[in-house]
């Protein structure tokens, strides 16, 4: 299938340009002061929006802190709940499995609008509405399915032979999990973690409904800016959003690689 024709690379280039050009335009907007019709490039540039991003009134630090803590917490909790669930779905068969699989899949497609209003009432009664903990819990719903799905595939690929081997060699279930299964699924967990972090970071409606405006994440800042047409400010915050996501993903990828290499030495030793 690898034939050389100039057409295919050209088409590929066009595709990638279409996909990436908008991001470049975004960067230009973030430093544009005035960009009147019909100039192709801004008439005046200024770093004002970037400066105001770092001024006190932008609340950059609390927003970033809240975003990262929230998404990080959601990632950790989701992973913690996903690992056992994925193990059950990936390796065991039990009555009602298909129903469980559907339920576990559902929040990927069913939008937050379906459950956010009711969840808000529920949380009000539990006294965790408008709180960090409440938003954290709420984010588990759209995040868990991703974690479970990825890790189910990991468990399926891994099988339970190695864990059984460990048991035969005298490891307790906990030891077998800790010393055999966990190192083996760690790379999968790391890459799932990257995705979970972003899914959480992107949640607008849930954060809005359950956080009551007190939990201000990057998404919460972004949507009104886009809605009200604050293009330069929106561009700046968007860039920040992408940078944070990217950074976390890279960290996770490195963690995954480290896990993978440590897994190798584990095998060698």
């Amino acid at each position, binding site marked *: 299938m690898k034939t050389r024709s100039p057409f295919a690379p050209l088409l590929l280039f066009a595709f990638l340009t279409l996909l990436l050009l908008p991001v470049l335009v975004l960067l230009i907007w973030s430093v544009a002061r005035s960009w009147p019709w019909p100039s192709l490039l801004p008439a005046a540039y200024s770093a004002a929006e970037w400066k105001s991003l770092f001024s006190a009134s932008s609340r950059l630090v609390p927003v970033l802190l809240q975003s990262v803590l929230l998404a990080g917490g959601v990632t950790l909790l989701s992973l913690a709940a996903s690992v056992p669930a994925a193990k059950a779905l990936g390796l065991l068969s039990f009555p009602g499995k298909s129903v469980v699989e559907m339920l576990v899949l559902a929040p990927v497609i069913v939008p937050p609008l379906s459950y956010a209003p009711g969840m808000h*009432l529920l949380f009000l009664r539990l006294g965790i509405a408008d709180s960090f903990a409440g938003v954290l819990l709420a984010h588990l719903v759209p995040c868990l399915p991703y974690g479970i799905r990825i890790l189910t595939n990991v468990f399926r690929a891994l099988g339970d032979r190695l864990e059984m081997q460990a048991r035969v060699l005298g490891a307790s279930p906990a030891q077998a999990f800790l010393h055999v299964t966990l190192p083996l699924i760690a790379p999968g967990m790391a890459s799932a973690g990257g995705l979970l972090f972003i899914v959480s970071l992107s949640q607008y409606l849930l954060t809005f409904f359950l956080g009551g*405006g*007190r939990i201000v994440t990057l998404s919460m800042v972004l949507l009104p800016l886009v809605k009200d047409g604050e293009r330069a400010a929106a561009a700046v915050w968007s860039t920040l959003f992408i940078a944070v996501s990217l950074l976390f993903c890279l960290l996770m990828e490195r963690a995954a690689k480290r896990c993978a290499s440590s897994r190798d030495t584990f095998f060698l030793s």
Partner: protein
Amino acid sequence: MTFRSTIRTKCCMLLIFALFFAAAPRLFASDWGAVLDASRGTIVNFYGWGGDPNVNAWLDTFVAPRLKERYGIVLNRVGMGIGEVLNKLLSEKAAEKTDGVIDVVWINGENFFAARRNDLLFGPFTQALPNFREFVDAAAGDVAFDFGFPTEGYESPYGKAQLVFFRDTERLKEAPGGHEELLEAAKKHPGTITYPAPPDFTGSAFVRTVVCDIVGREALVSLPADKEALRKAVAPAMEFLVALKPYLWMRGESYPASSSQIKNMFADGEIVLGMSYTPFLAPGRIAAGEFPESTESFVFEKGTVGNTHFLAIPFNASNASGAMVVINEILTPEAQASKYDPAVWGDLPVLEYARLSSEERALFESVDTGKGTVPLDFMLRRRVPELPANFIPILDEIWRETVLK
């Protein structure tokens, strides 16, 4: 939620409100010092529309530092539309949540009406505010009534606004003085005029301005808040808007969702005529280099709708005393004069001019209202009071059904 618990909540609420009605004026008048003490070192969550960076900046850089300095209060501004705020309060009420996070809410019109009807507000509290008693004429029509609905001390005036049009004089030579001329202008410049879709605040006000221009306010105010009656009464205005449609931006198939979009489109030169509920929007934007120098504001000959916007305290505010201190601070001549400056916000003051000292008057007189504005007294003379609050959602619906379809 059980039926019995609902009854119980209702009784509790009634009791609390009754207590406030009876005791509030005396209690607060004598104990403002206690209110100040109670609020020192607290956080006040200020919820309101956050779509105008100028307004946000004023709250963050003018009001917040003063509160911090004078009363040790931390002002936490939360940008949230009033619809969302009311819904949140409603859910909280349904769940009997008594320690709500919202302390101050920016509100007026039909939203105040809905909030009052569902007992979502704390009060009456305005008479407890020293600055309200000193500078505000509580009996004035635009303070005692909000879109025709009595405020009864449940909200304190924040600022006054009026719908103002602006045009690029280079491209739109003549300022349309009324709806017919607006249609003429649209025919002459097809696709370059539009208005935000109601229920956007500005778009809704534009529709009411057209209604008042064509039908007249007097013909409407006495009607009941009944959809069919109103539909009949405003039919000529809706017909006009339908006639205007083909000449609008995107042939009227779609409308900008917000006034900020209008602002961007005007700045981009996509439209030649815009409108804002902030009377001094244009000069601020000209100064910032966003609007062309040739921008000029104008109002219809028969006037445009204007109103007062208010601040209220939710029924379950955790920090009601802090909220009162914040609202009281916003009623100081310094604060009111500061936001009057078009470079800052351009919002009209709510204080009674006659009650101000000469130094305080000087604060207002020193404000430069900038280029391209309509003179304040000229504008105020052409101010049409808002229609009754409960008409607003009905008119918005009629617009959706007749014009948008």
